[in-house]
């Protein structure tokens, strides 16, 4: 049953060195605040799972938290490269990064299998690509009725699933809306779950594409307003597009990256302090 705790407590309780950790949120509701807290707590040897390891995983990789990355698209959406990810893969900086690479459809099928308690997922996928030559977790399966061969991928069952949502209610039920990606699946597939919400409300109101997770499948809830920044929470905050655009400048050079991370993440005690440290630059695109 969901307990409401600080984000510091949620992360220290749920995320341990060596864990398989999935921070999900498909371009919307990305749990940046949780990633920053993992960095502050100096977790190491994590296997990071995420369909779109954008800036949040660039930061975790650059700060040396990751041993392995399981993913399907690693870029700064609409803005460019992830230089810390590239530095790890191209130059083993700060150390070697093992990668396990899929397509979006494959990752979605893997989460779905994990949430369903199945050992594998089936899709019409990976045909004619070199991915199956470099990724051992892509296999084949034959339909027992038609004889057709399809792709099979193993279930993802992370140790920890971390998401942002807009609201929790007093009983600990969680509600999110707008683009909800694989957030439901990652919570259901994971052994432990950490949910960040914008606020706690007395009662949910109906929303287009409203997705509710009952309290008894959620382990901890932390109230972290603007927790997705520079991503956004629909009806609560706007995407900080200028921050995404500025990431190339911040991250291209490792020293500049480390200075930025020290100032805005390591030297800030929590997410409010992180947001305050950005004042003057934040939300320029909100107007």
């Amino acid at each position, binding site marked *: 049953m969901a307990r409401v705790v600080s984000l510091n407590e949620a992360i220290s309780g749920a995320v341990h060195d060596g864990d398989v950790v999935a921070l999900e949120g*498909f*371009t*919307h509701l990305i749990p940046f605040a949780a990633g920053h807290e993992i960095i502050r707590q100096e977790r190491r040897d994590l296997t990071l799972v995420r*369909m*779109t390891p954008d800036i949040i995983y660039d930061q975790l990789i650059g700060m040396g938290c990751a041993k392995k990355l399981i*993913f*399907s*698209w*690693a*870029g700064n*959406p*609409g*803005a460019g490269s*992830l230089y810390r*990810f*590239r530095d790890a*893969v*191209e130059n083993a900086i700060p150390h070697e990064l093992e990668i396990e*690479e*899929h*397509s*979006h*459809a494959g990752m*979605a*099928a893997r*989460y*779905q299998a994990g949430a369903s308690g199945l050992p594998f997922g089936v*899709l*019409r*996928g*990976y*045909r*004619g*690509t*070199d*991915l199956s030559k*470099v990724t051992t977790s892509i296999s084949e399966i034959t339909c027992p009725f038609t004889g*057709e061969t399809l792709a099979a991928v193993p279930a993802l069952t992370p140790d920890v699933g971390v998401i942002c949502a807009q609201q929790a209610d007093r009983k600990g039920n969680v509600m999110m809306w*707008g*683009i*909800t*990606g*694989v957030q*439901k*699946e990652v919570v259901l597939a994971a052994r432990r779950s950490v949910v960040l919400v914008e606020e706690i409300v007395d009662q949910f109101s109906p929303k*287009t*594409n409203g*997705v509710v997770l009952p309290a008894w499948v959620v382990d901890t809830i932390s109230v972290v307003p603007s927790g997705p920044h520079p*991503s*956004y929470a*629909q009806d609560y905050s*706007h*995407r900080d*597009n200028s921050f*995404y655009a500025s990431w190339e400048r911040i991250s291209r050079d490792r020293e500049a990256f480390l200075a930025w991370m020290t100032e805005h993440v390591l030297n800030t005690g929590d997410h409010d302090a992180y947001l305050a440290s950005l004042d003057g630059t934040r939300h320029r695109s909100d107007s």
Partner: protein
Amino acid sequence: MTSHQPNTEWTSDEMMTVAAARELTNGAICFVGIGLPSTAANLARAIHAPDVVLIYESGCIGAKPDRIPPSIGDGILSETADAVISIPEIFSYWLQAGRIDVGFLGAAQVDRWGNINTTVIGDYGHPKVRLPGAGGAPEIATSCKSVIITLRHGPRALVEKLDFVTSMGHGNGPDARQRWGLPGAGPQVIFTDLGVLRPDEESGEFSLVGVHPGVDAGDVVRATGWALKVSPSLVETPAPTERELAALRKFVSHDQ
């Protein structure tokens, strides 16, 4: 830019976007990614294809943004969509099930058969440049009824041999998709900033069928990494109209 004196100049990227937009027929169900595909599809919707259906892999079906979203997760997509669904559902019930008419794909490298690399330049294990990877592309390439590829022309972009096959076009020749049992027809056209390539009727190789205004076909051949065949019926792409440019720039200016 002053409104009483229309700007008749345009960039080669604008020409590429306009050419891609014109390819979309009204009512087509399009699976679009961010960047040029999203811009081209919305331009088509504004100009000649008001009923084109835009599907973003973030789960937004029938999105109708009035500005170009900088991210496929932009709030304007879910707010204007007919339906918003989960990621597993968009890939299983919608893309995989073969409901999409047209998929747009970008590429770091493409070969004469329309196979695409968005994974690495160099060796996979020790890449010279690590690119973002597959995303939705492998299944967009195989499941959509047809595929439009867009990329900037250059000998390191249109190559003799891909460093890595991320998404299958026509494999090693025109009958490869049939042998693989792929449902869709695969890439039907490549729009670059220089011209337009379509499969040659005989060989199936992507060949130059159009050049954008002011572009020399010989320059396009020299900017291509394989021995590009030039169609005998080569045409010049009609220049962007004022209306197209105005709509395009209105979208893009909203994005600043």
